[in-house]
């Protein structure tokens, strides 16, 4: 087996809550709480979960766009959390991100050329003619035209803007791209175009993706392995076939059963969870899901279940399975 491109061990991000005149710390939100996983070269790892589960914070912490509180992020065997700023900037050439909202992530005052050539300039492509050439090449790679380079973001549709975002991420030939809800803001017909483009680009440039989304059908379509997060924790992680055909964690089961499917013939047993996701400022003790879990036992309230393998390559954090070992 080859070595993973990225290894995340015990990643934590706690946001302090400050209040009062002196801004003293009065509590913390455990946005990401002890998350571990690894990503193989060329793989697409999907991360799903509902809003506030910490999936986006996980993505941004890996790139150190948000400084993690604790843990280890190894990229090609180097712990990048220990790197000084300058080194980190150099490394970002290999690690890029695509954001959800193509309206907000492109500077409206810059032409497409400027937007895409900025990362080239930052990473040392000094010759402006070379940069121009590269921008045109990139635009064509993502299915736009060279003449689009002189236009401004508002002149494009949502799908086209997302293509520009992708071109920008590709500019320096990265190895890993973190895609943070890249198709959530798009209409169905355009969403399919972008998903296909991303798959083509992976083949063409041997990319590795971490694909963060809340839409389970989209994640299933594009990913090789999928991790499910709930309240800052990874609760299940396995190949997509296993996850969608044989989910183990009660939360994954409920989540899958709740997805509305566009087929009137599918009769599935719906698990409707009671209540809402608890406040991450004050998460439940033990297993974070026990307040909504239909199968909760006494132990779930007290002891946090370990994220452990129950089968080959199938990790679950649930006492139902941990006990059997």
């Amino acid at each position, binding site marked *: 087996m080859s070595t993973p491109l990225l290894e995340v061990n015990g990643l934590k991000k706690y946001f302090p809550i400050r209040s009062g005149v002196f801004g003293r710390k009065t509590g913390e939100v455990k946005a990401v709480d002890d998350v571990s996983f690894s990503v193989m070269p060329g793989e697409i790892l999907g991360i799903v979960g509902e809003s506030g589960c910490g999936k986006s914070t996980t993505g941004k912490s890996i790139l150190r766009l948000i400084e993690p509180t604790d843990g280890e992020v190894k990229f090609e065997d180097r712990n990048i959390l220990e790197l000084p700023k300058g080194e980190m900037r150099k490394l970002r050439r290999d690690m890029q991100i695509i954001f959800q909202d193509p309206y907000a992530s492109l500077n409206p005052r810059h032409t497409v050329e400027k937007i895409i050539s900025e990362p080239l300039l930052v990473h040392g492509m000094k010759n402006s003619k070379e940069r121009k050439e590269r921008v045109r090449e990139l635009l064509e790679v993502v299915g736009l035209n060279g003449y689009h380079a002189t236009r401004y973001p508002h002149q494009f549709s949502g799908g086209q803007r997302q293509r520009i975002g992708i071109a920008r991420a590709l500019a320096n030939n990265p190895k890993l791209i973190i895609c943070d809800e890249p198709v959530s803001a798009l209409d169905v017909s355009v969403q399919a*175009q972008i998903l296909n483009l991303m798959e083509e680009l992976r083949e063409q440039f041997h990319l590795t993706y971490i694909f963060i989304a809340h839409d389970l059908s989209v994640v299933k379509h594009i990913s090789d392995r999928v991790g499910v997060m709930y309240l800052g924790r990874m609760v299940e992680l396995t190949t997509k076939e296993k996850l969608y055909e044989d989910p183990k964690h009660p939360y994954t089961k409920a989540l*899958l059963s709740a997805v509305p499917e566009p087929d009137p013939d599918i009769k599935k047993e*719906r698990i409707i969870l009671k209540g809402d996701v608890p406040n991450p400022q004050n998460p439940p003790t033990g297993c974070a899901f026990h307040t909504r879990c239909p199968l909760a036992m006494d132990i779930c309230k007290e002891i946090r279940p370990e994220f452990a393998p129950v089968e080959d390559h199938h990790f679950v954090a649930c006492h139902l399975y941990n006990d059997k070992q």
Partner: protein
Amino acid sequence: MAETVLELKDLSTHFFTDSGEIPAVDKVNLQIHKGEVVGVVGESGCGKSVTSLSIMRLIPSPPGKIVGGEINFKGEDLTKASEKRMKKIRGKEISMIFQEPMTSLNPLFTIGNQMSEAFRLHQKISKKEALQRSIDMLKQVGIPRAESIVHEYPHQLSGGMRQRVMIAMAMSGDPEILIADEPTTALDVTIQAQILDLMRKLNKEKNTAILLITHDLGVVAEICDRVVVMYSGQVVEEGSTREILKDPKHPYTQGLIKSLPKLREKQQRLYSIPGTVPKPKLGRVGCRFAKRCEFAFDRCFQADPELISLGNNRKSRCFLYEEKESGVESDVNSTIRS
């Protein structure tokens, strides 16, 4: 068939902007029968929300205006109703809930305060009684500790709870029709399942007709009896939910369904409709979808197709079905399925 409670006849709503007149809703026909759940599906900019706002006469004017057609509600044409009459109808006979419950609730008033207002507007009851009824309503939509929630403010509730409050408020007048404009789009899947479950329950128990505006075909499959598909301001297809999802006729509907990633199937590559949704424009000739359609022929660019009845309440706005006799249809279907 149950009686028709609402019927749109050639409804047209145009917006008059600096860059010209925009036919956001272009001669839309639609019927809703008693106790029926009708879905209006389409992508952004197709006119589905403008249609629903037109029914409520909530189109901001200027720039918008209903320029033609009728909205028949129990024998009354709402396009001609006075504002005073509309105030009586809104919330009492036809209610509406919106996508983002936070923006539809007033952050400065308690839940109980806002709900009582709805009661007291349409019925002569005391404040105390109105509050009591609000509590009862909240219990009906499954809100725990309703007695204390009425004294709380919208920001203290979660998204799912707020949407329940909105539904409770909309149902408080016991309306004939509930218009729900993307009611679950801002919610997480597990919460969405709760809200859809609630809407289904209210529809069964109170026999309230629901007009559901959505872009999500999965939601449609969950709850709707009948579906209307809109594209660029026009209705392009109509039929029962099963027929639309299993056997779509219009190339746009077919493309839309094929481009969805499915939970249960293995798909190598997603089908995708080329291009993007065109903006509605006045004086456009030809089928709105022709440019993106893989079956388009000369005629599609030269004349406007009518909404053709295919029998059994199925309709499709496509020239392919006009020339049924010539065997084009079977050709089309075999190409699509292959």
